[in-house]
């Protein structure tokens, strides 16, 4: 390393406040008798100062700056450099304290006024290029952003730049992915609310709902922080999925490690890859890290447990209980639509992940009061964690009054189509996270009493419908392709 390179290194360290005493001595030795290096240092300092000045981006700071400068100048006018050098042994504080003007005392008032006028203009340059905390890279369905002092944007779009604020995925079939500047990505899906802090390091608040994250390595002293109602997660670089509810948080880690603090008692644990933990609001609940359960290819709902959206109608003498689709007002392509939605959680909590396998099918039973086009949907994750996609299939259902409005529908997995082109073509091989059904702008009196996922295979006996006769023709609700 030649003397110029060494000078540059030392001078940069000085400007960053990172120079120790031996470095200062070395810097002094280098510039002594070398006017060229001295000039370079002065040039650099001058630009450094002006850039720092520009960055003082509020009117109050500008006013503070002028008064501070005016008040300080008598001492600085003659002893500026000595002052700087006296500070060196302690390390020059980096933040704002290097903001000192190089103006002659007699010209300060005029110059400071000019500077203030200029800052307003210069600030726009910084403001114009001010980076986002993150950017929306993908979204589908009803996703809403509240930021900028409380301004609500219903129709936020891909490419939208985000600073501090709250991102809400409003419906069972909605989701959004945002990317941070370092390439880390976060996806929320279903009904989820995520607040992004303006502060560094990356700090997120998952108030409720599901989040999956692919986090690139973070500085060890500045992990990504994810807060939930019951836990704090410190993430240095990993892939993970989080589900947050008011009373508990479940964390599943696919890669890397995540440090978890249970808020109720301050207990801390680390969750390695392929493991999970539940942080409950109940201090007596188990907080041990367990291996993620092996996937299964069949699943049976156990309503009302697992209901995400809808109204549970208890069992009556003549009918099973059912999860009634209830209205949800959502924007779709800037149009307000009422969806009547019933949604269930599948691979949630401690339950094993339900994998969708080729030839598998759903059997849905419930009721419907009037003919309608019903949309059935799936939210999926990749087998090793992380959001994979949403899939949907539509069925026109007719009412057959004589069968007491019962519904019994089979849905083959191969019939489900991706909601977005970027999703895998088929849900086969993915983990089913949520299941939902809905009608749009029509309350068809839809309710679901059970949903069953069965894999293909001759060993699988065809289940008997519960509420209809064995006669196919008289089966409760007949699909119309």
């Amino acid at each position, binding site marked *: 390393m030649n003397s110029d390179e060494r000078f540059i290194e030392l001078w940069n360290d000085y400007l960053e406040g990172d120079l120790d005493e031996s470095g200062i001595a070395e810097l002094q030795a280098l510039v002594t*008798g070398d006017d060229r290096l001295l000039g370079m240092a002065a040039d650099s300092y001058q630009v450094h100062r002006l*850039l*720092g000045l520009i*960055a003082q981006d509020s009117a109050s700071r500008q006013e503070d700056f002028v008064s501070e400068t005016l008040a300080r100048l008598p001492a600085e006018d003659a002893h*500026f450099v000595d002052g700087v050098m006296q500070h060196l042994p302690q390390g020059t504080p980096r933040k704002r304290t290097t903001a000192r003007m190089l103006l002659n005392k007699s010209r300060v008032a005029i110059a400071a006024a000019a500077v203030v006028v200029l800052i307003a203009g210069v600030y726009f340059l910084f403001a114009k290029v001010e*980076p986002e905390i993150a950017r929306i890279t993908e979204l589908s369905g009803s996703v809403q952003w509240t930021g900028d002092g409380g301004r609500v944007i219903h129709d936020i779009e891909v490419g939208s730049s985000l600073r501090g604020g709250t991102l809400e995925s409003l419906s069972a079939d909605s989701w959004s992915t945002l990317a941070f*500047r370092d390439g880390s990505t976060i996806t929320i899906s279903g009904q989820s609310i995520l607040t992004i802090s303006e502060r560094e390091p990356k700090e997120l608040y998952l108030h409720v709902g599901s989040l999956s994250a692919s986090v690139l390595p973070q500085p060890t002293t500045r992990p990504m922080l994810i807060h939930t109602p019951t836990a704090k997660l410190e993430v240095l670089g990993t892939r993970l999925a989080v589900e947050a509810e008011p009373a508990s948080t479940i964390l599943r880690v696919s890669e890397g490690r995540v440090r978890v603090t249970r808020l109720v008692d301050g207990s801390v644990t680390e969750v390695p890859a392929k493991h999970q933990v539940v942080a409950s609001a109940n201090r007596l609940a188990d907080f041990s890290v367990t291996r993620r359960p092996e996937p299964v290819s069949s699943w049976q709902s156990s309503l009302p447990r697992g209901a995400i959206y809808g109204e549970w109608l208890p069992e009556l003498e003549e009918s099973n209980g059912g999860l009634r689709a209830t209205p949800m007002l959502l924007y779709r392509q800037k149009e307000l639509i009422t969806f009547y939605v019933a949604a269930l959680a599948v691979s949630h909590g401690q339950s094993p992940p339900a994998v969708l396998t080729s030839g598998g099918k759903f059997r849905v039973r419930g009721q419907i009061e009037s003919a309608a086009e019903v949309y059935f949907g799936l939210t999926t994750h990749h087998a090793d964690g992380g959001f994979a996609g949403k899939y949907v299939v539509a069925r026109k259902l007719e009412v057959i009054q004589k069968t007491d409005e019962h519904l019994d529908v089979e849905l083959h997995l191969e019939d489900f189509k991706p909601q977005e082109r970027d999703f895998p073509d088929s849900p086969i091989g993915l983990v089913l996270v949520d299941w939902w059904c809905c009608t749009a702008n029509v309350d068809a009196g839809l309710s679901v009493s059970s949903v069953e996922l069965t894999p293909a295979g001759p060993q699988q006996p065809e289940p008997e419908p519960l509420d209809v006769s064995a006669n196919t023709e008289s089966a409760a609700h007949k699909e119309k392709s």
Partner: protein
Amino acid sequence: MRYAPDLLQRELERRSSEPPELQESRLKHLQACLGGLGEHLRRFIRWRYAEEIPLEEMAARSGRSVAAVKKQLWKLRRALHECVQARMAAEGEPS
């Protein structure tokens, strides 16, 4: 032995004797020079001065070493200084 602080002070005093109009002009030119930087370079200035992000974080974000980030900042300050000087010279202003 000549003291470096004296030398630096002399140089800074020379610059501080600039008339206020020149200070104003220097800021204006710096604004223009910043605008002329590519976004991939301007982000270093933004991180360092507007957001006050630590060098380690800047290094992580840019996929470089801390030393490389320091060097980049030095180059940028140097380039901005030369840009300002060139613009002032083009307008016949003393620099």
